[in-house]
């Protein structure tokens, strides 16, 4: 236990799905109170709150304090696209690393049930004469007239681009990735959808943006997740039971796109993920082959494929072979998305980056029940938000 380390003391996710009984603040409060209880601490112990929420308006943290405890601590309201949850977690980790406090709480919540297609801009308001506006001098909305703004279509192109570069992608290949995640979800009682689907069912479902059919898209749903993080020094003062269940944050990294010509016209989720992964492996002093499980940002089946490569789970250009070998299945060499992934577990945006970390911790603590990856010691959680922002956390089981 090296000094300066940060540990996850308590962490939970709510059931993902529909939560008509409460609002986002209520859902966040459930997760926050459960994470505190999981860590065996109270709001009195917490020195910083980082509150992630993307669609809600930007004051979740203070609203949440009124439900779980107003102690006057600094609140950071965090929004960073689909990397919001990971960014909130990292905000709390950084506060501890900076020495400002010895314990922090990070929360992410979203209510998205029935939200429909995300990323579609509203129709541009039109007068009765054409009027150029904006940085492209556009006279009307460009969605569907100059490429697409919707997320399934954008990520479809990201997967197809991989095919253009390295070959061998097909509609069926992407459907098989989705089949794997839906199969994994059958073991996850907190997943929004936990039904196995055959490749045929997936391919014959409603086409959203070729090659992504509906079950190949992340499910919009409600959900929250929260984590209590603690300094090394503070952890030493806590009980044996708390120390035994604590999970070490071996790496916490956030990156954005460096300039490239391609990312000016199509979001590039590759370079910044590869950069984040490289930094994370270096921080943790581990290699991709050391990982016992990976939760990566499969917002669409087409995205999962490229991240095998970006996270260096395979050699460059070999993602198709890596998947086809069975490596990413729960009984493979590097199980990927044993939670069911965003395609079946669901993707309540700001909750996702903490829920992925929870999934890893659940296995490292040996508490994952039917879906436990036996003997898991080291895992990686990855999220990406378009624009782009990438968060990678590597988690390590406490030494016995």
């Amino acid at each position, binding site marked *: 236990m090296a000094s300066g380390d940060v540990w996850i003391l308590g962490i939970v996710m709510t059931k993902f799905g529909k939560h008509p009984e409460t609002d986002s603040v209520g859902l966040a409060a459930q997760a926050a109170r459960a994470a505190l209880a999981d860590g065996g601490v109270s709001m009195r112990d917490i020195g910083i709150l980082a509150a992630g929420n993307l669609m809600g308006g930007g004051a979740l943290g203070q609203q949440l304090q009124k439900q779980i405890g107003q102690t006057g601590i600094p609140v950071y309201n965090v929004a960073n696209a689909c990397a919001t949850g990971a960014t909130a977690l990292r905000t709390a980790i950084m506060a501890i690393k900076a020495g400002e406090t010895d314990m922090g709480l990070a929360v992410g919540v979203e209510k998205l049930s029935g939200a429909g297609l995300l990323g579609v801009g509203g129709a541009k308001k039109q007068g009765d*004469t054409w009027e150029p506006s904006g940085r492209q001098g556009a006279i009307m*909305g460009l*969605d569907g007239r100059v490429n*697409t703004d919707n997320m399934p279509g954008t990520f479809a*192109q990201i997967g197809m681009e991989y095919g*253009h570069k390295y070959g061998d992608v097909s509609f069926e290949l992407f459907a098989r990735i989705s089949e794997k995640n839906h199969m994994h979800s059958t073991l996850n009682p907190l997943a929004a959808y936990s039904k196995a689907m055959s490749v045929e069912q997936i391919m014959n479902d409603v086409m959203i943006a070729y090659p992504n059919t509906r079950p190949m898209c992340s499910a919009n749903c409600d959900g929250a997740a929260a984590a209590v993080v603690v300094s090394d020094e503070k952890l030493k003062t806590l009980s044996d039971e708390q120390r035994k269940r604590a999970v070490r944050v071996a790496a916490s990294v956030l990156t954005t796109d460096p300039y490239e010509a391609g990312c000016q016209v199509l979001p590039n989720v590759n370079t910044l993920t590869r950069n984040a992964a490289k930094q994370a492996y270096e921080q943790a002093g581990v290699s991709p082959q050391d990982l016992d499980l990976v939760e990566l940002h499969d917002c669409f089946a087409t995205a999962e494929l490229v991240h095998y490569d970006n996270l260096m789970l395979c050699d460059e250009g070999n993602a198709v072979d890596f998947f086809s070998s069975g490596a990413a299945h729960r009984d493979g060499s590097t199980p990927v998305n044993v939670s069911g992934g965003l395609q079946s577990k669901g993707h309540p945006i700001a909750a996702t980056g903490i829920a992925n970390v929870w999934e890893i911790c659940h296995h490292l603590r040996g508490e994952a029940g039917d879906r436990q990856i036996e003997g898991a010691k080291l895992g990686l959680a990855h999220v990406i938000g378009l624009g782009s922002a990438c968060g990678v956390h590597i988690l390590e089981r406490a030494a016995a």
Partner: protein
Amino acid sequence: MISSVAATETAARIPLVDYLALDPEPHLVAQECTVCGARYFDHRDACASCFEAVFRPVNVPTEGEVTSFTIVSYAPPGVEAPFVAAIIDCGGTPVRATLVDVKPDPDNLTLGMKVRLTTYSLGTDSAGTEAVGFGFAPA
């Protein structure tokens, strides 16, 4: 389906975006950083690559190769669905666009297919000005 715009001398026309030049023949115009050569299709305050702030207009080749595509089933109001969204490599400059004059069916579309720029009418406003959009059609 979408029809090509016949060049008319009389009617006023306006491009969908300011980086679409209609004359003498339709083509795209990128803003190129005079220091590092990075190209942009929108107004930038400074270059995202080298941080300098002087740009010059450069004509982008009108022919290219499809490096990625998708067929989008749900379109915003006023746009016909399904439509094909694609990224086209025009002589080294990546361009985002739609594919036109091709059936939106995976059997008709291939990665690497050759395409060329074409334009089409998006209607006229109350002053009689015709809006002109662009897409890429199989070459």
